[in-house]
Structure formats: C-alpha cells, structure tokens
C-alpha cells in the first residue's frame, strides 16, 4: 500500500517566544515491510536543523529558532509504501516460558525493554494480568493475541480520560485512555511476564480503526529469532500494512514525535493534525 501522510504540529504562544528548541522524531526508518518514498519536513518560520540518530535508533531532527516568533509550525509530508509483515510462525508457537528464556539471554541488548521505565512503572495489576494471560505453557502467539484482546475489552477508548502525563496507575484504575495508554498497559504486562517489548509511535490508516487524525501508538514484542512482532491493543489486532512505524523506545517519552523547550514564553498551545491518504499503487 502507498500512503501520503501529512503531520502538522503547531505551537502558538500568546506572548510570543524568543527562542525555541525542538527534537523531532518524525523520520520513519526503512524496514523490510516499509519503504520511505519521499519525505519533506518544513518549519515555519524557517529554523536551523541538524540530524542525529538516538540511542534507540530513531532518526532525530534538532530544530532551533533564535528569533522572536508567535507561532511555530513543523510540517512533515511523507510518502511511504508498506508491505505485508512476515509473521515468525515458529517463534509464536513457542511456549511463553521458553520464549522468555531465549530472548532474555540477549542480556544488555534487551535490558531497557525488560525493565520498568518512567512512564511504565512496575505495578501489581500488571503482575496479576501477566500471571493470568501469559501462563508459561501457553504458546506465545495465542497468549499475545489474547492479551491484546483482553486490554481492548477491559479498557475504554476515551480521549478525554487522560492526558500525555497521566500516570499509568490512573489508567489502570479508570480503565480508560487513548492509544498511548493502551500501549503502556500492554508493555507493563509484558514486562511483568519477563518478555522484552517496546513502544512504537507511528501512523495508522483508518476509517474504522481508532487513531487516525493524530499519531498512533502500539507495541512490539521481541520473540525468539530476535524478531519484533507488533500488536495494536487499541484496535485489537496485529499490525499490518495500515501501520506506518516512525519511532520506538521504552515508552512514550523516548519515542514522542516532538518535544520542545521555549524561552520567553510562559505557555504555549499545541495543535496536531495528521492526515493519511491511500494512493493508487503505481507499477
């Protein structure tokens, strides 16, 4: 499938800002199932930019603006092609306990994805869900599918229920949130079960699937053979051609599309728009 994606982020400061510094994680990686055909990132007013690759492998664009301004817009225009993702069937047939043993032997490479992080702390709920849904003898694939579907069933999608910084404990209590919260919940359970997993930020094509008009978030689990398999608990499915991967990390903080520091302004309003259109395949 070929997609045209436009992702616009606009900051407005009532009193104006004198300096702005942003880190944008907007550049999708090339993957076996994902090809970036073209991308343009524009900032207005024009700002100086430079790129680097962060600890988690994300391509980061550093944007800095030193003159007085009242609004700052970052627009990413992206054309990307997705293919069917290969499913490592053998690995998913492996029992949970064996899978855990195999992948955790990767030691330092998986440490970050096995331990609690700022946004995904240890919790008793996660431990009890892990015991219930990820029993040692269960084949990994069916256990993961039922975990995603349990989360989908038990948690209500409600954009008003949470904000970016709502602690996960509140999400467990109120059983409601957005894709970011669904992903964090699934990470918490997987990590409680000792299965390495990471947060993914990206885009999803949707008429019925929840998550378009904004960025989307889901989860990748490391399975034997060192493959990452992606699940979308918000939509109760394994990720496929409608998902475009942009950035990864331990949790939302590592993968957040834009984070910024502003000077000379006490407050700023943020507006995000994402549009994703399917293009006809060209042969």
């Amino acid at each position, binding site marked *: 499938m070929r997609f045209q994606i436009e992702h616009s982020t606009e900051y407005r400061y009532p009193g104006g800002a004198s300096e702005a510094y942003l880190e944008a994680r907007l550049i999708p990686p090339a993957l076996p199932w994902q090809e970036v055909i073209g991308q343009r990132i524009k900032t207005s007013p024009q700002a100086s930019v430079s790129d*680097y690759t962060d*600890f988690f492998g994300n391509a980061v664009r550093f944007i*800095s603006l*030193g003159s*007085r301004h009242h609004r700052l817009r970052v627009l990413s225009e992206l054309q990307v092609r997705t293919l069917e993702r290969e499913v490592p069937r053998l690995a998913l047939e492996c029992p949970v306990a064996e899978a855990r043993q195999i992948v955790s032997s990767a*030691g*330092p490479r998986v*440490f970050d994805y096995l*331990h609690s992080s700022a946004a995904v702390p240890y919790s008793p709920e996660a431990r009890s869900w892990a015991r219930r849904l990820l029993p040692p003898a269960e084949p990994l694939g069916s256990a993961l599918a039922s975990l995603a579907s349990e989360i989908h069933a038990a948690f209500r999608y409600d954009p008003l229920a949470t904000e970016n910084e709502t602690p996960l404990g509140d999400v467990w209590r109120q059983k409601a949130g957005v894709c970011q919260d669904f992903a964090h919940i699934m990470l918490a359970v997987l990590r409680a079960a000792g299965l390495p997993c990471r947060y993914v930020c990206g885009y999803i094509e949707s008429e019925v699937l929840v998550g378009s008009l904004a960025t989307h978030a889901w989860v990748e689990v490391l399975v034997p053979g060192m493959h990452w398999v992606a699940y979308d608990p918000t939509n109760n499915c394994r990720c496929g051609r409608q998902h475009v991967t942009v950035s990864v990390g331990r949790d939302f903080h590592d993968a957040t599309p834009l*984070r910024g520091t502003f000077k000379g302004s006490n407050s700023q309003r943020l507006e995000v728009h994402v549009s994703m259109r399917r293009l006809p395949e060209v042969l």
Partner: protein
Amino acid sequence: MTLSDRLYSEMFASTGEPREAYAEILSRLGSLSRPGRKRLVDRIETILRELGVTFDLPHKDFEARRTWSCDLCPHVFTAGDWDLVQRGFEQRVRAFDALLRDLHGAQEILRDGVLPTAVVLGSPFFQRPACGILPPSGHHLHFCGLAIGRDPRGRLAAKHHYFSHPSGLAYMIQNRRALSRVLPEDWWPESIAPVAESPTLVLEMLRAQTGSASPVIVLLTPGAGSPAYAEHSFLARRMGIPLVQGADLLVRRDSVFLKSIDGLVRVDVIYSRVADEWIDPLSFRRDSLLGVPGLVQCVRQGTVRLVNAPGAQLADDRALLSHSVQIIRYYLGELPVLPTLETRWLGDPDQRAAFLDDPASHIVRPLYGEKILTGDVLIERLPEILRSPSRYVLQESTGEALATRFSGTAEAPCLQDHILFGIRRADGSMQTLPGALTRISLSPGGFTASESGGGGRDTWVCTTGAEERAATLQEAGVARQFVTSRVAESFYWLGRYLERARTLAGMVGAIENLEIEEIGRASRDIHRPLWNRILPRPEGFHGRRNLSNAANRRALALNTSDPCSVAYAVLRAAANGEMLLESLSVEAWSVLSNLRDSVTSTGWSDQGGRDVCEAIRSRIAEFLGVVSTTMLAGEGTEFLQIGIMVERAAVTSNATLALAASLKTRAAADPHVVEARLSGFLRLMGCRDLYRRLYQARIESGLLFEMLWRREDVPHSICFSLSTVLSFLERMDSQVACRAVDAVRFTRMCVLETPWAEEFVRPERHLDTLRPLQNRLLALHTVLSDDLLSHTDHPPRGSE
C-alpha cells in the same frame, strides 16, 4: 569503643610514637606555647575570612556564608604512600575512561558478562543521550578527583570516585595559602611541591581541547545556590575565564554562544560544574533551569567541547566502584595498584538479604554524593532504602583514618581522608597534582565531607627532584575578557532600582517637609493634586494616596509589600545585587546588604518618614561611592551607571509630564497657584536651589522645563542623563552598541532642538511637545535591552 580502638592512626604508631612523616612537624607544633599556638590558629581563621573562602552547608541560610576552616597541622604523605596513591589514581582513571568509552559504545564488557548488566544499564547515571557522542580528544575524563582513605586493615584505599565532577581544588590551594602565611618559613621542607599553579594546568588542559590558538572557554556553574559556588568563582578568576550560568549561553545553528555586552561570542570549550542530568533540558531533565537547551546537540556535532564529557558521571556510581578490580583487569590487564574500600550493591538480592539480617550494623551510602547512613538514621531511612535498594550500596567502613586536629582550643581526635586531583596531559596521560584536599571532621561524631560540616588541612607531598615539577607553562595569549549580558543586566537593574529608590525617597522627604513645616492648609491643596500625579501608583489602584498623615508617608517609604514604595525598590535592587556576588566587591555588597536589612528590619520604627528617607539616600550614595573606589571599570559597572541614568531620565520625564498636565487644570488659571506649584515641584525634584542659582529669577514653566530637559549641566536633566549614557556606550566601542548609540544621540538631538522657552509660553502646548519626546526616551530601554542584554533579534557574530 573509642575512635582509636578501631581506626588506623595516621599520625602515631601503635607505640604512641609519631610516625616518621609526622615526626618533625609534630615536634615543632609541640614546641609552641599554648598561647603561641592559639595565635597561629586565630591567624589562619582571619586569613581565610579575609580571603573570602567559604563552603556553604546545603539547606542553610544563603546569607550565612560559612568560612572554610584549615587546621594548623598539615598532612604529610611519605614518598612511598604518595607513589602508591598516584599510581593507583592514574591506573583507575585509565581503566574507567576506557569503561566509559565502551559503555557509551559497543558495551563489550557487558556482552562479555564481566559486569552485571543491571548495575550499568539500571544506573541513574547511565545517560542514553550521551551514547554515540565522541568525547573531547577521545577521552571522557580530563580533570578527575579521587577520595582515598584507610580501609579497616589500615591500607590506603579508594573510597569514592570523583572522576566526573571533582570538587575541592580551590580549597586545596587556599589551605596552602593560609598555612604558608602562618607557619614559620624554616618549618617548610624544601622539596615540598607547590600547588598554586593547579588552575593553570586545568586551563592548559581546557585549551588543548581545540585547535584554536585563542579558544573561548567558560566555566559553567549551577549558580550561587551551589555550596561550592565560592570554588567555581575562585577557579574562574584564577583561570581568567568567564563564570557563566546556563542562561548566559544560548544555541544558534548548532553552536554555543556566550551572551556578552560585546554581542554573542562563540564558545569553544565548556568546563562544566553542572551534573549531566541538568545540562540540557531537551536531552535530559525537562525541568532543568540550569542548563542550555540544545547544548548536547552542539556537543554531538563537535562544535563545542564539554569537559568532562557528558555521561562521565557513570564512572562515579558506587555500584561500579565495587567492580573496580574486574574493570581494571578487563581493560588494562593489570592488577589494581590501590585497593578499593569494600563496597557491595544493595540491588543484588543476596547482599540485600545479608544486610537485612542486621541493618544497624552496616554503613549505607547512596550511589553518589556524601551522605552516610548508619545507626539510628539508617533504621529511620530503612523503608526508603528498601523501596529502591538499587540506589544504595553497603561499605565496610566509612574509610577514614584517625588523626589529631589542632584548630580548636585544645588538641582533639578527628577523622581524616583525602581527595586527590588529576589532569590529563596533552599527550593523553594523567598527571596527579602533587597535593590533596585533606578533609577532617570538626566535631565528635562528625564526618569529613565538607557538605557534612568537615574542614580541611594542607597536604604536603615531597618531590625528589627527578620528578616532574610544576609544569612549564606555555605562553598563553591574554585571555579575552567578557562581561556577560546577565551580569550587565543585573547591574543595569541594580542601577535603575537604586535610582528609583533614591529619587522616591527624596520626594517623600520633601513632601514630609512641606506637610509638617512650612505650608498651610490652603497651599497644601495646591500641591496635593500634583503629588498624586507624580507619585507612582500600584497597578489597578485608582484612588489617591492620602499623604496628609505621617503613617501613610512612612508606608510609602517602608511598606515592602507596596511595589511603589522606596523599600520595595531597595529590595529589588538588592535582589539584583545578589545575582552579582561574583562581580561586586565585598565592600560594595556589604553596604548593599546592610541597606536591604535596614529597610526590612524594625530598626527605624521610631523615626519619621523624612529621617528614614534621608538614611536610605545616604546609604545609596555610600554604595555608589564604594563601587567607584573598590571596583574596576569594565567589570560591568558602566551598566550600573547606565541604569541609573535611564531611570533618572524616566523619572524626570514622568514628573515633568505630570506637571504639564497639572498646569492645564482650571485651578492653574491663577498665577499664584502656578507659581506655588512650580516651586513645590522643584522642591520635590530636589532642585529648587539649582534653579535659583541658574536663572536668578522667579520660577516660570518655560525655564523650568528647559532646565529639566535641556540643560546638560543640571544632573537632574534628561540631556545630562542621555549624555552620560552616551559617553559610556561610546567608550564600549563595540559593534552591538552602535544602534543604541545612534538612538541615544538622536533622542538627545530632538531634546536639544526643541525651542523650550517659546514652546512653553502656552501651557496647553506643553503636553504635545513632551509626549513624543517621552516616547522616544522610553524606547531607549528596549534598544539597550535587545541589543546589549538579551540578544534576541540579531544573528550571531561570525555567522554569515
């Protein structure tokens, strides 16, 4: 059990005889009479106080700067001990530098299973944004410290690594300075190694980080709130480099710039005394106000060198200290020269279990910092420790030796340890500075750490001559001096608030005189409407100030919660002065802090408003006098004068506008009222006598306005203020001052070309003439501020 039962005694052998290294100095100290020794002890104290050497205790009142203490008896390293610690230190830095390079890259030591992954990747000091950054000159560590003490077997041992942010070099130098002025010359062995050049060696190392012949180097400090601020300030002065805070720096086009009154100056090397997690809110802690947003990206791009490299703090994690042997073996293939104080990580379940069997018998320390938890304190903090055990270690002892201190009224036992310092040479090898900060406890049960109230003593290392003496210093070019914009801005506002306080105090005093002494009820009604126009009113306050009673007048002088009061202006001035502690002379700060204390204290409760105002005015005059006699021109004090003049011009223009408005009212149709009002006005401004001397005539409005706007010989006049500002700006001779110079010149020309005498025949024209002039005047503040202080709109110098 007493101290001496279980600790290694540094000064005396078990026989009670002094150890060899100490024999001579102890016998000399013993030869002094008690009063003779007391005199020396007192002199050290006086010298340290005069040098302004302080170490502030955390959480203590900021005003209460605690003077550093240095013992009369130095610590003497034997040649053998020194050789051991020096080789041990250099070996450790080599190993841990290699460790940092590996951990921020391929992590081979983890993949080889030599270190537990959780110790490293679970460490709060493992900074993921620091991975992949090329450290300056290929090394993470360039200037390091190491705490050594005695282990329970009496061996010299490493207690803690201060490899990333060593603190205490200034105190090592000050101890030597103080002691060398007190001990007789013939007490000093000839071979004793000097330490005074140490900051120059640090500077040399910083200069070597770039290819540039005259690199711009700054010392980044968290600010005056840091306990070691006195050290930061000392080192910056000794190295001749600017002491800057995060807000003094900014990032443009992936380079770091210093905001100075000469414009933006590109910075090549930053010697950082700010911990990793605070240096850049974009990469590390989002809530950091101490850092520079974008700094890490500049480091990554190689446009600026940060010393030590970001991420280096990981080497100081006590959980890693416990693996010193493995680390030294893994990277160097050597056995450790210097043993490590036995340290065990509480993140390890086995260690935790052993600890929980009998917690009170252990010594617990956090992964970093000076806290020591033992006994009751430990039991009290147990729940906190068990909530995050991986943030603590056990140590077999606190690692001190027993010694004797001579500083109190009598000799007393004390604990003692040392911090060594090492600097990387240009050839990449490490050089241990031939001295140390020897720390001693000052009270029974106290600790050696300065943060815990410890003091110090001088440390003697004797070189054999074949060894390296103080480095031959390269001929360094004269360092460029910068006045940072933050300093200039604080001086500017200090000047503005002082002038505001001074003029307002003058007005309140004059009103008091008019009210009490001289005028009757009828003439008061002539003055009061004018007073109401002139005196500042708080925002949103539309009523009139009732100045007919003394309490209200006193409030206008001393009510600190009224933003229009004299006292409030004094407090704002003092707050700006406080941000200038490293720039103001000690004498100037003492006058200013006295002034601040006097407006907040109740010392003036029985005095009238006029006396209070007089006292405030005379202290402000005293402050300005002290500044002019104790500070160098070019240290930013010109901005104090510029602030004073800008404020004075603003006050005069506001007051004359208020006068002009009051002359348009119906009451002003009466020539007697006008004359009385003009006279009262001149008294308020403190220049009635001046007017008489100048014009020797009855007061008329045309001449009055001419005097206060145009006459350059009248210190209250606007032209006087503008000319003074102009002369300062012109002397600065800087590119960035150009626009300000033009703006001031033009404003002055407009004032001079106004035909004052003719314009002011008709009162209704006054305001039309004054308003545009005033707007031009007020706009000068924006130009000064944008171009010289905040650097918002102009591209950096050196960019295309």
